[in-house]
């Protein structure tokens, strides 16, 4: 029973390897101490709750973010924004696709385009939006950390 419980907690607990090891050691100690004091294993298991309950409780107390989180989404968004921004900047300098040659002066040729504006600006706008999104994620994370 005890071995099974420890195994289940080991499997479910989502903490750093060091913290996980500490929690499991403490759990073993709890069982051993209970035995020393003549308390039954059942009583201890009752007090600990199910492995799910125990893990959830420990994680909540230690402030582990439930569900989505971590650095990954922020990093990816920021990288995406930077790449888009660079791409857009590179595009803005280039002459449009299919240009036969560059004129030295203004021409009267009107190019029909699907967009009423330069797509490079659209990409730049998108990059800016992504950067704002990344910033919002960072702020949200900071606020959550303060709340813990």
């Amino acid at each position, binding site marked *: 029973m005890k071995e099974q419980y420890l195994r289940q907690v080991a499997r479910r607990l989502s903490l750093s390897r060091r*913290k996980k090891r*500490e*929690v499991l*050691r*403490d*759990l*073993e*100690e*709890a069982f*051993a*101490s*209970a035995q*020393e*004091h003549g308390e039954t294993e059942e009583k201890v298991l009752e*007090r*600990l*709750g199910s492995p799910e*309950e*125990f893990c959830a*409780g*420990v994680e909540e*107390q*230690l402030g582990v973010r439930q569900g989505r989180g971590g650095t990954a989404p922020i990093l990816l968004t920021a990288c995406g924004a930077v790449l888009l921004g660079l791409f857009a900047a590179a595009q803005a300098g280039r002459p449009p696709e299919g240009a036969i040659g560059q004129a030295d002066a203004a021409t009267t040729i009107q190019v029909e385009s699907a967009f009423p504006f330069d797509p490079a600006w659209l990409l730049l706008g998108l990059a800016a939006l992504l950067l704002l999104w990344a910033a919002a994620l960072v702020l949200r994370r900071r606020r959550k950390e303060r709340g813990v």
Partner: protein
Amino acid sequence: MDSRYVQQFKKGSLEMILLSLIARKETYGYEIITELNRGGADVLGYAREGTVYPILYRLQEAGLLSCRLVPSAANGASKKYYAITERGRSTLEELTAFWERYTACVDAFLRGGEPTEVAK
């Protein structure tokens, strides 16, 4: 099941209570749980490892408690003994002082009178 308000309230005082217990003498997890349940299970609710141990970790990471592993003679297992640090003692003093002013103030409000000016 306690209302959410009572739960939150209890959480706040548990850290102070743990510090005061450990300030008395160096002790280990099981002993702490037993003491808690002996002293106040009917008011504070049944103390469980799942709730108490993480608070002990937090207090230790904050430098208010120190711990050491003592190997257990019998089966090669170990026991973790918690002791209060200097910072822990001063924090406990601060908390205790605040608690006394706090209870005096809240009592006054609940009694419906003017809150007395508590000496700072």
